[in-house]
């Protein structure tokens, strides 16, 4: 009975995820985000609100430690604005795209590869490991990190790792606390562990809260004031 329920649940999720890219309507999702990075007994906290539209427009309002706005799109045309000083750091294309935002990845149904194929990785194998689906991607271009593994449970990613040439995971990301919305699922807790050296590691915990789908908020259409507000 339980197995049937799990299968139905998995099938529903699969349909949900497959339907995501087919329904690219102008969906709007906002969330409050708290990022804490711990390292050697110290922790750094960043809080922000993210406003993501289905068309790829992304507005990030940083609250702490310094108020600033970042407005960008899938082409990476980003602008950075500091309300306190009126400084507008638009300038050149800095290569920062809304496709890099986790919320946008899930909103656009990119859970099948979490965007790694855009970074030059290609799927080489899929395996079943104790009921979990494990996908392996490789890249010929990225010699330092030639392999990526993504593990799925009930069709949702729970683990992503970048491996060095020796096969050791040097960067691991864990996804949990999934929230379910119509045609949209999202992990509200993301934990990243990086091992810059074999003896050191940093832990970054990202908590998403107050997720709102298709609500009206003027910040979805926020535009940086002309001439940086000056």
């Amino acid at each position, binding site marked *: 009975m339980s197995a049937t329920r799990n299968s139905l649940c998995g099938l529903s999720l699969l349909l949900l995820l497959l339907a995501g890219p087919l329904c690219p309507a102008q969906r709007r999702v906002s969330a409050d985000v708290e990022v804490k990075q711990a390292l050697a007994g110290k922790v750094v906290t960043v809080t922000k609100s993210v406003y993501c539209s289905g068309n790829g427009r992304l507005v990030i309002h940083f609250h702490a*430690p310094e108020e600033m706005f970042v407005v960008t799109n899938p082409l990476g045309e980003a602008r950075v604005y500091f309300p306190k000083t009126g400084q507008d750091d638009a300038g050149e294309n800095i290569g920062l795209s809304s496709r890099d935002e986790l919320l946008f990845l899930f909103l656009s149904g990119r859970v099948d590869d979490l965007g790694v194929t855009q970074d030059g990785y290609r799927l080489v194998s899929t395996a079943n490991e104790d009921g979990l689906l494990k996908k392996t991607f490789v890249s010929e271009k990225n010699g330092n990190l030639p392999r990526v593994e993504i593990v799925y449970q009930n069709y949702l990613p729970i683990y992503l790792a*970048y491996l060095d040439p020796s096969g050791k995971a040097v960067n691991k990301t864990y996804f949990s606390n999934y929230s379910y919305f119509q045609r949209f699922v999202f992990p509200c807790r993301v934990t990243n562990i*990086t091992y810059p050296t074999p003896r050191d590691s*940093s832990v970054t915990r990202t908590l998403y809260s107050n997720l709102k789908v298709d609500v009206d908020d003027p910040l979805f259409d926020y535009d940086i004031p002309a001439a940086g507000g000056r």
Partner: protein
Amino acid sequence: MKKLLLVLVAVFAVSFAANANSYTLDDAAIDALVENSVEVSPVLDMANLPAPLPANVPAVGSPSPVGAFLLCMFLGEFGVHRHYLGTRPGMWAIYTFTVGGIFGIVPLVDWVMLLIGLVDDNISPYVGNTKFFMWA
């Protein structure tokens, strides 16, 4: 002292919880690690950097490969090494775009590139670089 012990216990628990065979984490251990750590600011403040720096690291404006490499190693997720090398304001925030710059991979590649720069004693392509991907 008690806090330090708690942090050490949490670090051990995280190491244990995140072993190579596991695809899930002990969230309580992560929470304990985060909550028992001392809060510091990510905004570049060379005087209060939590990571140890060698005595010969120069002031901001004349970045050394060693300084940039160490900052990237210890504070890479928040792009502090980029501010040390000279970049646009707010780069620290851009590095937190997802979880430390696209699943934390951007600072890791930065670190590798800076390691190469350290070996070659040439990090000039990264000094004053305003792009998110400094190596691109």
